[in-house]
């Protein structure tokens, strides 16, 4: 039996021994152990290297494996053991044992043998003792299983047969990149994208975590603020403008506003910001958009807005790329801009009646690094690894356990860590903003004053995929909801689940008579509610998925212990829950709504093919634009 591990080249540091870990790899490890036990074999480690040469690393590898792997394995086994024990123990609820059991027993004794009392007696006895015994037995089996696996893996690793080095061209290429590059970040960003091309996607995560510009300090105590020796002054950035050129559009009658012929291969090729920027610039020139450079980052990347259209009826803002790890938003904006190179059925009307601002990427470095940006209280920025933490089995296991137990909501400890010092750049909008980047964006938006805005986001990544993989587009909406309605929303039934309830909920008299009060029926009385409905209808009409079915039920029934982060109001539609709304954490669309009364939306797309994610965003935005201009109702 052999096991594959990697020797990963690093910039100006010794190579790293790397085991590809993913949340379910332990299944493989356990299976391997079973096989080894049965066949009485020993384990061989195959180390993939750049040149296939081994230089006295056998001892290091053996010790390192035992030190790190076994310790983490033990931990993940423990978490799993507890998790499974918890779930399986639910089969033995106290009320069954202590209430129903004795009740049956007493009923049996009272009723006597002939009137069916014997059956009651048996049922009572089983509920009192039998069920409990069987559940305990199952829990013990599971615990034994994991203990066997733990001891087996320890035995296997101690008795490693040998370490074999094998050369891999991908690692050779990575080594060349490290030797050639001058800057660590640039080297890691290049390596990150090379991993995909060389068939080593599992190493991508490693370079992704290591690429951030400033060293990451997650393990520092979080209750406290950094005290810097040097002064920190924020220089305001002077916006640059580039005038619009004259466009020439080809007629395309089949198209409404946006082109839904999306090339997945083309999109996959735009993996770095430079590649995306080049395409955006080309598209902007062709459609005759005015370019406004809103901000320039320390590394010289531009944050641009492209404005097009001469109308005054609506001022539309389409924004994306706030989080670098979410590529579908910027790519969707590129596709929207490329669509305007052609003249669809409604292009002329939309551009003559409204002005549209496209802001494709807020965090260009993050886009290339596939990282998140954190902003601290003083306005300093750091790039974080994806999903907010360095990759460790412990972190994964904890997160997995917490998500499963809390039904996807955030744990208080995590919330605290996340919220106290560094914040997501999307939640620090408002009057007290310190980050120069967000200040510049806000200043620009103060001038633009959008009436309708969509911010495109994604929820993807290993842990998110466990829960949301395959879900369609979700919309988080900001429109005026009277305070008395908002206060009642949390305690109301989410939406009618079956046809009969849905039918009854539509009849006002029946609703009152039966005491049915659903969120959806109440919200439908607010005029702005219709717009989101039309947008979602348009997405479905274009053949894309909306957030529905089992995912919707997850959203409708959040953990009872937690105030929900989002409150669902209809299929695939939500508003900010008390966790966001009452804590006064302002996300960009909420700030827009509070500041200018903008009708604003955040969209979330989930793990699906890239072209589908882009298509969902495109359809959502198209539906919104056509609805607010009264061109098409989304039917």
């Amino acid at each position, binding site marked *: 039996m052999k096991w594959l591990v990697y020797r990963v080249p690093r910039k100006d540091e010794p190579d790293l021994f790397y085991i590809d870990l993913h949340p379910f790899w332990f299944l493989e490890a356990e299976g391997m152990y*079973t096989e080894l036990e049965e066949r009485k074999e020993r384990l061989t480690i195959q180390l993939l290297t750049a040149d296939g040469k081994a230089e006295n690393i056998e001892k290091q590898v053996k010790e390192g494996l035992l030190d790190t792997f076994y310790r983490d394995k033990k931990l993940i086994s423990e978490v799993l053991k507890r998790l499974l024990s918890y779930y399986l123990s639910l089969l033995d609820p106290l009320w069954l044992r202590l209430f129903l059991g004795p009740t049956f027993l007493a009923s049996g004794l009272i009723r006597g043998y002939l009137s*069916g009392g014997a059956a009651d007696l048996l049922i009572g006895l089983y509920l009192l003792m039998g069920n409990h015994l069987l559940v305990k037995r199952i829990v013990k089996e599971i615990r034994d299983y994991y203990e066997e696996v733990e001891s087996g893996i320890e035995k296997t690793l101690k008795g490693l047969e040998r370490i074999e080095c094998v050369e891999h061209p991908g690692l050779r290429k990575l080594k060349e990149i490290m030797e050639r590059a001058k800057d660590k970040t640039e080297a890691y960003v290049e390596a990150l994208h090379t991993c995909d091309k060389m*068939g080593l*996607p599992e190493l991508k995560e490693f370079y992704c975590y290591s690429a951030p510009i400033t060293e990451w300090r997650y393990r520092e105590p979080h209750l406290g603020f950094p005290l810097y020796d040097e002064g920190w002054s924020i220089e305001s950035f002077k916006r640059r403008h580039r005038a619009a050129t004259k466009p020439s559009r080809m007629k395309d009658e089949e198209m409404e506003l946006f082109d839904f012929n999306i090339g997945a291969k083309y999109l996959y090729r735009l993996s770095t910001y430079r590649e995306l920027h080049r395409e955006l610039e080309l598209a902007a020139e062709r459609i005759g958009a005015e370019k406004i450079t809103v901000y320039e980052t320390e590394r010289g990347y531009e944050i641009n807005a492209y404005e097009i259209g001469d109308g005054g009826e609506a001022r539309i803002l389409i924004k994306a790329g706030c989080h670098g790890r979410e590529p579908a938003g910027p790519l969707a904006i590129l596709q929207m801009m490329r669509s305007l190179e052609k003249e669809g059925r409604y292009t002329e009307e939309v551009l003559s009646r409204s002005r549209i601002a496209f802001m494709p990427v807020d965090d260009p470095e993050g886009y290339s690094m596939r990282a998140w940006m954190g902003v601290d209280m003083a306005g300093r920025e750091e790039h974080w690894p994806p999903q907010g933490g360095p990759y460790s089995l412990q972190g994964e296991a904890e997160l997995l356990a917490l998500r499963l137990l809390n039904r996807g909501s955030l744990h208080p400890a995590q919330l605290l860590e996340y919220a106290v010092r560094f914040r997501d750049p999307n939640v620090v909008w408002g009057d007290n903003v310190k980050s120069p980047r967000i200040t510049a964006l806000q200043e620009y938006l103060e001038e633009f004053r959008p009436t309708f805005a969509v911010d495109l986001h994604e929820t993807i*990544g290993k842990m998110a995929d466990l829960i949301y993989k395959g879900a369609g587009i979700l919309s988080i909406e900001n429109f005026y909801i009277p305070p008395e309605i908002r206060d009642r929303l949390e305690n109301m039934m989410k939406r009618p689940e079956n046809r009969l309830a849905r039918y009854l909920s539509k009849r006002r008299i029946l609703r009152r008579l039966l005491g049915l009060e659903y969120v959806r029926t109440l919200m439908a009385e607010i005029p702005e509610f219709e717009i989101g409905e039309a947008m979602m209808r348009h997405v479905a009409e274009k053949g894309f998925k909306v957030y529905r079915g089992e995912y919707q039920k997850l959203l409708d029934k959040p953990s009872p212990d937690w105030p929900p982060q989002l409150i669902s109001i209809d299929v695939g539609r939500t508003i900010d829950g008390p966790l966001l709304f009452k804590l006064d954490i302002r996300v960009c669309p909420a700030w827009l709504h509070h500041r200018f009364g903008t009708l604003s939306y955040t969209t979330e797309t989930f793990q699906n093919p890239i*072209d589908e994610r882009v*298509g969902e965003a495109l359809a959502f935005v198209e539906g919104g634009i056509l609805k607010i201009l009264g061109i098409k109702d989304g039917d």
Partner: protein
Amino acid sequence: MKIIDVDAYVLPTLGRISGGLNYTAYVDLEIDKHIMRCGGVEHKVRIHCYSPERLSRGELERIARAFDNAFSRYFADVEKNRRIYRYWRLMGIIAYSIATFVAISSYLFLPYPYNIYAVCVDVFFFHILIFGHCFRPLYRWLLDGSIERGVHRAIKRLKGCEVVEGEDKGKLRLVEMMRERFSEIDGGEINLYGRLRDYARNLGFQAAVRFYDWLIRELREEESFYTKYNPASLWRRIKLYYLGFKVEVPRITAPMRNMDVGA
């Protein structure tokens, strides 16, 4: 020891999340069927790998380890399932008997005078609940049992695998033609795979048809691990507890470098 020859093909695919274009080595073997067919004899699997470009030893070893991983994962899943469900099924039978007894016991001990025809009508309408529902779990139980026995046989007798470069000129030409076709087309990911599948079908390349069929099914699926194993809806939960978890059979695939002609 018997040697079983299996083919692996390096076929064009698109990267996930934010990845680029890459190719995937697909071992044309279904684990559950292989276990049932060959688990009884001591054997080793030799994988003949067909790729549009020559692969290094490291890349060939990755295919071999993907093979090991997929088998190990399947073995572990089946074993865990067996351990949990040994008693779970017993509980199911007892709970089921209790429910059945509760449903019909009132008819067994009816005082005189009673109408036997009314009892017959009631039992007739109850029979779906009483008898019908036991077939599905019983079938699943028997099926799971045979899989578990098969896995135990195979664990002892499967002696790993080795990967060699394939030498069949016809099959090599097929993977080259797939690559050429892929470099000519663009579109949505599912659409691309659909077109590649049709092309493979026209070529009579059945392994590629199976691979793309599986990929398309995976991408179309509106389900996640969570919605399958910890569903929110009551009905799904009942089904899960009643029938037990179904062990999914993993496919054997390994990511390869980009071999696109135009890239």
